[in-house]
């Protein structure tokens, strides 16, 4: 049983005292920041990322993963209690969760979310452990041309899954790729687009991009119309769901887990799609569809499970192919690179303790999350009362300090302001920020593999269609592009996404 051996190795790493401790700290910090209204998981991870840089690689990555699912969970608490989802995947939870809270049933809603997340996290961790090694061994046979096509495929699929205009998403990706070319050229060392500023030779730091797009831009949007937030945060009582509730959430949790685990692998917001799909499925097969939107506990349990399962399985493309499925995974790539590890198929063989330790820690993190969240709910409720006038200066300040501490480079801080403004304007024009970040992170990979394959093929571009893997991926990318642009399918997609609007 190789899987068991591997998991044993993983648990022996993950259960080291310092790893459990920092997993706990990560989950706690992640939840605490994720609970704050208006900050989604991406901004949370970007802001807390610098904290992890001083640790050992395994510990740092375990902590970061903890921050991620802590933030995810904290976001759903906010969604349920005050109807302010931090990111789109929690928007579904807000539908019925907040309705339940208004009926005085916040406790069961939070418990359903926590239990669902835990079950989903457990199942998806096993799925991750089982699926990663075979995928990684396939990926090892990839040549540069195949990688180029894979990255292109990933970027294009992310458009097909994103909401909003496909044309704009495509433009955002291309813009991200373009901004990723700033800095020294990998082959010739020529500094590009640096305006003679030595500080820009290393390129723009992805943390600045993420903090600007997801932190500063979001704050500016929140400051558009300031009003005293009607925080009707009632006391959370009766945490434990009734027997009727428990009976009703079992099937949605299992279905949500399955859906989420499968969809989470897809690039570009599989977790959002997973929670929306789960909600739609539950509503369709429910005997009481009229209850949905009026506080149906199935509408909380299903999407929350789907969301969390997808959060775990989105590590599969990261750990096996080095491809981020969504912005948070893009930040994880950055964290790997900071620690001198290139994420991809080699990690599993070169760093088995890190690979399996990270996977095992996800399960431990889910246990911690369950133990932490239900008893600490009172604390989270109190954090929700922090006035925005204190909150947003804190976010900006911590973001500035955090990005400066990355390289002690003032340009990283200036970049926050630049991307904050750029992101703000583009978001107001109806462009989603996530594709830009994905393009930014994957751009250098795209360029490197394009140039390397052309060097190997002596300038013959047909290499991309004559290699079977590459050709298949490009064909799939074309299909995905057609799907994304085709009006009829877009309309149906709009229906899936429109459930909450």
């Amino acid at each position, binding site marked *: 049983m190789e899987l068991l051996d591997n998991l044993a190795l993983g648990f022996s790493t993950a259960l080291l005292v310092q790893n459990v401790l920092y997993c706990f700290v990560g989950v706690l910090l992640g939840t605490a920041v994720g609970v704050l209204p208006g900050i989604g998981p991406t901004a949370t991870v970007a802001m807390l990322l610098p904290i992890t840089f*001083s640790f050992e690689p395994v510990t740092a990555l375990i902590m970061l993963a903890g921050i991620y699912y802590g933030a995810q969970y904290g976001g759903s608490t906010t969604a349920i209690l005050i109807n302010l989802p931090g990111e789109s995947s929690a928007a579904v939870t807000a539908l019925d969760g907040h309705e339940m809270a208004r009926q005085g049933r916040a406790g069961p809603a939070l418990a359903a979310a926590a239990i669902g997340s835990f079950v989903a996290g457990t199942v998806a961790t096993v799925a991750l452990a089982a699926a990663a090694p075979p995928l990684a061994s396939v990926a090892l046979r990839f040549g540069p041309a195949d990688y180029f096509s894979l990255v292109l495929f990933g970027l294009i699929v992310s458009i097909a899954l994103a909401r909003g*205009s496909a*044309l*704009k998403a*495509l*433009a955002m990706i*291309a*813009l991200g*790729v*373009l901004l990723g070319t700033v800095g020294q*050229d990998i*082959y*010739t060392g*020529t500094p*590009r*687009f640096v305006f003679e500023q030595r500080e820009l030779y290393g390129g723009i730091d992805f943390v600045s991009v993420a903090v600007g797009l997801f932190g*500063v831009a979001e*704050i*500016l949007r929140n*400051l*558009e119309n*300031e009003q005293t937030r009607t925080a009707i945060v009632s006391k959370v009582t009766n945490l434990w769901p009734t027997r009727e509730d428990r009976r009703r959430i079992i099937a949605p949790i299992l279905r949500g887990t399955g859906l989420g685990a499968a969809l989470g692998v897809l690039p570009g917001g599989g977790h959002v799609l997973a929670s929306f799909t789960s909600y739609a499925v539950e509503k369709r097969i429910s005997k009481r569809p009229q209850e949905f939107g009026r506080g149906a506990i199935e509408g909380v349990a299903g999407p929350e499970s789907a969301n969390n399962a997808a959060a775990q399985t989105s590590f599969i493309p990261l750990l096996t192919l080095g491809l981020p499925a969504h912005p948070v995974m893009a930040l994880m790539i950055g964290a790997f690179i900071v620690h001198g590890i290139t994420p991809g198929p080699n990690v599993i063989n070169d760093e088995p303790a890190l690979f399996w330790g990270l996977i095992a820690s996800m399960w431990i993190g889910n246990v911690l999350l369950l133990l932490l969240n239900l008893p600490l709910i009172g604390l989270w409720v109190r954090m929700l009362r922090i006035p925005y*006038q*204190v909150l*947003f*200066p*804190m976010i*900006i*300040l*911590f973001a*500035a*300090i955090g990005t*400066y*501490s990355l390289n*002690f480079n*003032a340009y990283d*801080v*200036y970049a*926050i*302001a630049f991307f*904050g403004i*750029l992101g*703000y*304007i*583009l978001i*107001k*024009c*109806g*462009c989603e920020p996530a594709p830009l970040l994905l393009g930014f992170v994957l*751009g250098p990979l795209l*360029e490197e593999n*394009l*140039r390397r394959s*052309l*060097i190997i093929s*002596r*300038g*013959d*571009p047909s290499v991309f269609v004559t290699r079977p893997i590459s050709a298949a991926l490009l064909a799939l990318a074309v299909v995905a592009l057609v799907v994304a642009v085709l009006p009829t399918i877009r309309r149906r997609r*709009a229906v899936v996404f429109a459930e909450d609007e």
Partner: protein
Amino acid sequence: MERRRSLPDVLAGGIFVLIGGAFVVGALGYELGTPTRMGPGAFPLLVGAAVVALGLAIAGKGLVAGEVISFGPVPWRAVAVIVLAVLFFGFTIRRLGFVPTTAVTALLTTLASARVRLLTAVAVAAGLTVASTLIFVVGLQLRIPLWGPWLGF
């Protein structure tokens, strides 16, 4: 979804054209190389051209059949103050040191809200300065001097 002329679409397209165009012009200044050995300018040139093309498509579509999005109000004060605060932080952190830079940045950002009173702002800024000094310098051992050379240290 109703479709008609949409100014936000035209604006978005314009931004893409502008940035893409700037990169194209910049890329032409670098060596383009041959397909076998692409120079540093080739890839940005290709992608920049794609961004320009997509921007033109978005703007063009926005003129005839754009997405109906309302642009909404812009919190000019917040935009100006936050940009100023972030630039100030980047510029002075080396020169003034951690404590004064943090304090001024915090105070400036707090003033971004149109509803804040000066006294509250000072209190929030003081609190944040103490908190971030404790977290980042004492707790996380960040190697940034507390007081910088501009203050005679």
